[in-house]
């Protein structure tokens, strides 16, 4: 479990100032601000990034889906998600995928408890912001046609049935399946981005395309908001990746560096691709490249060096570009705001690329084939396995969640008139702007 690792690291790296079971104010400061940064990513960053890209009649609904997802998912996390993800199950078999209900409502956790060198409550809140953004990402694929009620039910169920078990498998500590297998996922390439992006695609296919898609031109309300959203996401991502070092240490510093490099490289790449292919570099392209780079480096941020960051950012951008521009057209699904195209594909690439670009440095690596025997190919197989298992769980879980939510809310899709007039007007009774 990541928790453990930071403690373990202390043994290898005498430059780290902390000792077990003692609160370190620097680490605590860093983890609290990281929590705030990751929080900002959802109701401000992602909401604006998505809101700006939607048609004007659905902007507030898009925002409400993202902001609503955050508040509901966070409560679900406190009520049972955390327990399932990071609790410890007595049954060793169940412990592979499921932490149990021992910490429901954070039962058994005191405010003085520590997680390594900082308060356990901060760890739980930090992780809760991850749970919330993951499901919020998925909303991007189904914007403009899903009932708000259905979406709210999906957020609840998905947090329990899909997010929490996957988190347990990857980050749940000893006895958890993929953790034991030695999968490397620094800050959530599989847990967050592949997971959220694939869930988006599944929902998009199940609910069907927006009426008029792809014939009608569906113009974005304002790319200005999308760009601001991308900038806020980037800012928050320092908490996401940097905070995943679980302390203000040299690994966090490395993550800060690789995150900035990969993101910049990805943005430049997307801009150049558009420039060469379409003759026009768009602001939406630069913003999309930024997100693609951030996603791609997420699983690798604390494992790779300068060169690896460049490579992961550039290739991640090319792949996401391909997903958004080509793949969507080839298969004809309506991944409205490209949650799949960007988050799944760049997350997948980052997860696999980690095997090849991770520095072979004992002080950095988590247990696994690469650390134990420098076996990159073995590490790649573990990465493949984790990608396959997470993918399958997401796929199956999301289908189940969709059908339950749809049944509970009398169908997942809004009626034609609502879709036509816009969800802002019919569902929320609001308009994006009043002159």
């Amino acid at each position, binding site marked *: 479990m990541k928790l453990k690792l930071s403690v373990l690291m202390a043994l290898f790296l005498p430059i780290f100032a902390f000792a077990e079971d003692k609160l370190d104010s620097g680490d605590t400061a860093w983890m609290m601000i990281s929590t705030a940064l990751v929080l900002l990513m959802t109701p401000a960053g992602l909401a604006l990034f998505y809101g700006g890209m939607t048609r004007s009649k659905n902007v507030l609904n898009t925002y409400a889906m993202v902001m609503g997802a955050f508040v509901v998912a966070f409560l679900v996390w406190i009520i049972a998600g955390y327990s399932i993800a990071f609790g410890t199950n007595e049954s060793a078999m169940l412990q592979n995928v499921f932490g149990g209900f021992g910490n429901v409502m954070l039962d058994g956790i005191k405010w003085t408890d520590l997680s390594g060198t900082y308060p356990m409550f901060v760890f739980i809140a930090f992780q809760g912001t991850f749970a919330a953004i993951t499901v919020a990402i998925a909303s991007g694929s189904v914007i403009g046609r899903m009932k708000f009620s259905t979406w709210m039910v999906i957020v609840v169920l998905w947090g329990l049935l899909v997010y929490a078990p996957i988190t347990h498998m990857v980050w749940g500590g000893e006895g958890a399946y993929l953790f034991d297998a030695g999968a490397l996922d620094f800050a959530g390439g599989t847990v967050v981005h592949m997971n959220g992006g694939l869930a988006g695609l599944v929902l998009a296919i199940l609910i069907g395309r927006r009426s008029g898609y792809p014939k*009608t031109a569906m113009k974005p309300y304002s790319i200005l908001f999308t760009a601001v959203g991308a900038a806020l996401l980037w800012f928050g991502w320092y908490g996401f990746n940097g905070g995943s070092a679980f302390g203000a240490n040299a690994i966090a510093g490395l993550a800060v560096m690789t995150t900035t490099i990969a993101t910049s490289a990805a943005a430049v790449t997307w801009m150049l691709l558009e420039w060469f292919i379409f003759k026009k570099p768009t602001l939406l392209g630069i913003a999309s490249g930024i997100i693609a780079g951030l996603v791609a480096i997420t699983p690798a941020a604390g494992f790779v060096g300068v060169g690896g960051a460049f490579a992961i950012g550039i290739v991640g951008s090319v792949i996401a570009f391909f997903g958004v521009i080509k793949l969507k057209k080839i298969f004809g699904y309506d991944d409205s705001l490209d949650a799949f195209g960007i988050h799944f594909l760049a997350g997948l690439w980052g997860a696999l690329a980690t095997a090849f670009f991770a520095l072979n440095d004992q002080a950095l690596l988590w247990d696994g084939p690469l650390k134990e025997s420098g076996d990159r190919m073995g590490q790649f197989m573990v990465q493949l396995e984790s990608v396959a298992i997470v993918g399958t769980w997401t796929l199956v879980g999301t289908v189940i969640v969709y059908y339950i939510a749809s049944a509970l809310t009398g169908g997942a899709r809004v009626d034609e008139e609502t879709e036509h*007039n816009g969800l802002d*007007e*019919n569902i*929320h*009774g*609001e*308009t994006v702007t009043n002159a």
Partner: protein
Amino acid sequence: MKKIEAIIKPFKLEDVKDALVEAGIEGMTVSEVKGYGRQQGHSELYRGAEYVVEFIPKIKIEIVVSNDEFADTAVKIIGEAAKTGKIGDGKIFVSTIESVLRIRTDETDTDAL
């Protein structure tokens, strides 16, 4: 010369434009307007107070054509393309235009269209 003014539902603009162009009418001017009529607007909510939006977004299309025949065709085409059969489809008004000037070339009247 005649001027046709049509008030239609916004989402029908594309269809109407296509139908007109197909029929050889190549110039038109459109604007965003709000209509008040039998069609009921939706209601908006602000701090729990619900108020009905009485003015509903519509599109106004203006076309000037050189003779009555063209005018009839245009009215027919618009009428067909804009129809949904539901309240609020809108209206088409025809009136007379006395002279036309094409600014670019100083051509006038029928030549200017």
